[in-house]
């Protein structure tokens, strides 16, 4: 791997006597987009601001491009190499043009160059016509675009995005996420992206950090995060619907079987010793649901159950199926599959889709 663009070593943040961010190491390479994901109050914004050099560190340090911030590189000089967008647009009084040029004028960029760069980025973000408008007259979406333009016009190597689209309506949000993803790729800008929406994260991020109570719980590629959560808590935070408890009943070479509420479940990956209590997960869309008696699909891990509840879930339906005495499994089924509460069904759990969590 090439030299990291930013490397944070053992950074922590204290607010009064409380440690709001526990010591952690974070690294980002040029062109990489790293998501900071977690519930409200997890410390995502705090970590982002710490990485952006906006908060005094209680411990640790930042290294940008091999230079230690505060020692080889002054804090202001570091902040002039990066840029940040926050959840609110935070525009200053004046015109759109003034706001977008602000970062450039603070850096002492000559006026003609300011003007041409501002014009080109406003056009790029499709708000060229707003140049002379006062910021008080903008809509929420327009204001957030201006805020984004004000950041991107600086053409930094590293951008910090703190839930920039959280307050926008869904169509505007999707459009802006798409445009932003294209720009980041095209300019090879690295970015940290705070979000509590995994759809947004999946559109932008290559890697993701999961936080809770100021602690990093997991750091992994987004795909692994969704399918292979490290712990029960990560699984819960990432919205994993099926978190199931079982006991290891057979362990023979690679072959592992779990006793899940009286049912034998075959797992292809994972480890455990006979008698161990384990927690395993499976994403609802990996659960195969069929009317009772339907024997199509893989033969392994096939169980009978009864539909308890059916909920609309976008263009699909989320079906709760009771299996055995106490276990309930969530399965995603296409809308055309006729399922009603009380109906007998067969569910199949593909062994490769099951994941045993480490703790």
């Amino acid at each position, binding site marked *: 791997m090439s030299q990291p663009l930013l490397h944070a070593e053992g950074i922590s943040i204290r607010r009064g006597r409380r440690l709001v961010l526990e010591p952690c190491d974070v690294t980002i390479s040029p062109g990489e987009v790293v998501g900071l994901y977690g519930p409200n109050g997890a410390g995502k914004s705090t970590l982002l*601001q710490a990485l*952006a050099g*906006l908060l005094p560190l209680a411990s640790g340090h930042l290294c940008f491009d091999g230079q230690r911030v505060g020692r080889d590189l002054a804090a*202001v000089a570091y*902040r*002039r190499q*990066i*840029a*940040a967008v*926050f959840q*609110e647009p*935070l525009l*200053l*009084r004046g015109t759109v043009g003034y706001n977008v040029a*602000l*970062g450039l004028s*603070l*850096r002492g960029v000559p006026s003609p160059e300011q003007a041409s760069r501002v014009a080109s980025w406003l056009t790029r973000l499709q708000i060229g016509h707003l140049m002379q408008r*006062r910021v008080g007259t903008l809509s929420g979406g327009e204001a957030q675009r201006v805020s984004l333009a*004000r950041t991107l016009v*600086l053409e930094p190597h590293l951008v*910090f995005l703190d839930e920039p689209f959280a307050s926008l309506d869904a169509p505007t949000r999707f459009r802006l996420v798409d445009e932003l993803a294209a720009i980041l790729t095209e300019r090879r800008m690295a970015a940290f992206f705070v979000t509590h929406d995994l759809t947004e994260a999946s559109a932008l991020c290559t890697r993701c950090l999961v936080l809770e109570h100021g602690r990093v719980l997991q750091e992994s590629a987004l795909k692994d995060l969704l399918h292979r959560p490290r712990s029960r808590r990560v699984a819960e935070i990432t919205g994993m619907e099926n978190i199931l408890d079982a006991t290891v009943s057979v362990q023979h070479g690679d072959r592992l079987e779990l006793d899940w509420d009286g049912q034998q479940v075959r797992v292809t990956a994972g480890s455990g010793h006979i008698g161990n209590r384990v927690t395993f997960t499976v994403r609802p869309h990996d659960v195969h649901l069929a009317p009772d008696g339907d024997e199509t699909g893989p033969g392994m891990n096939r169980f009978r159950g009864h539909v308890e509840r059916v909920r609309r879930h976008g263009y699909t339906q989320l079906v709760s199926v009771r299996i055995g005495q106490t276990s309930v499994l969530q399965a995603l089924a296409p809308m055309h599959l006729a399922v009603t509460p009380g109906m007998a069904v067969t569910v199949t759990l593909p062994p490769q889709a099951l994941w045993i969590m480490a703790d």
Partner: protein
Amino acid sequence: MPEAAWQYWQDLGDGLLGAFVLLLTGDPETWSVIRQSLVISLSATVPSVLVGVPIGMWMALTPFRGRTALLTACNVGYGLPPVVVGLILSILLLRHGPLGFLNLRFTPTAMVVAQFILSCPIMINLTVAAVQQLNPKLGLQMQALGASRWQMLWLFVRETRLPLLAAYMAAFGSIISEVGASVMVGGNLPGSTRVLTTAIVMETGMGHYDRAMAYGMILLLLVVVVVGTFTLIQQREVRL
């Protein structure tokens, strides 16, 4: 109407007429009083702005131990009775007092100092209030855009210019109308420390209602013109 009452109204009318004559004929004493009023009040309030605004910004933006105590002190300063300021300053400036060597008693400089002490807390307090009304994350955004400490100060001043203008109006209005401290440290010396307020008090005491009324009208007019101008600027800015 009884004779005495009639006389009263007649004197009042003469006084008003005399006031207009004084104003329109450019009476040198009248104009000297007006000039001194403006010079002393501006000399006190302009430094108040230069000192009070940065202190207010710093107090609003930097969390530190004892900030509440300092804000309380400024609040007390806001409501400081001018007579008390005048008294303390007079005692300090007495010939054998701690600041007697400065020889400032009964000089315009002493009046400027008194009015500065009175107006500075107003500027600090209203600046703190103006900044605290802004989004607390605005400073973070300015830093993130690469602003240095001084650039941030400038951006905050720019961002709060309307409430700061209002603060200045409040400070100027209260200073130019203040009489207690002025008369005590200034002494109402003609051509030097005689300003509109002290002159009104004196002339009324001496029964020169024409002069007192002329000064009263001027004072009112000055306040209206200054505050009106600032209000106009403020309203134009709001519309933009």
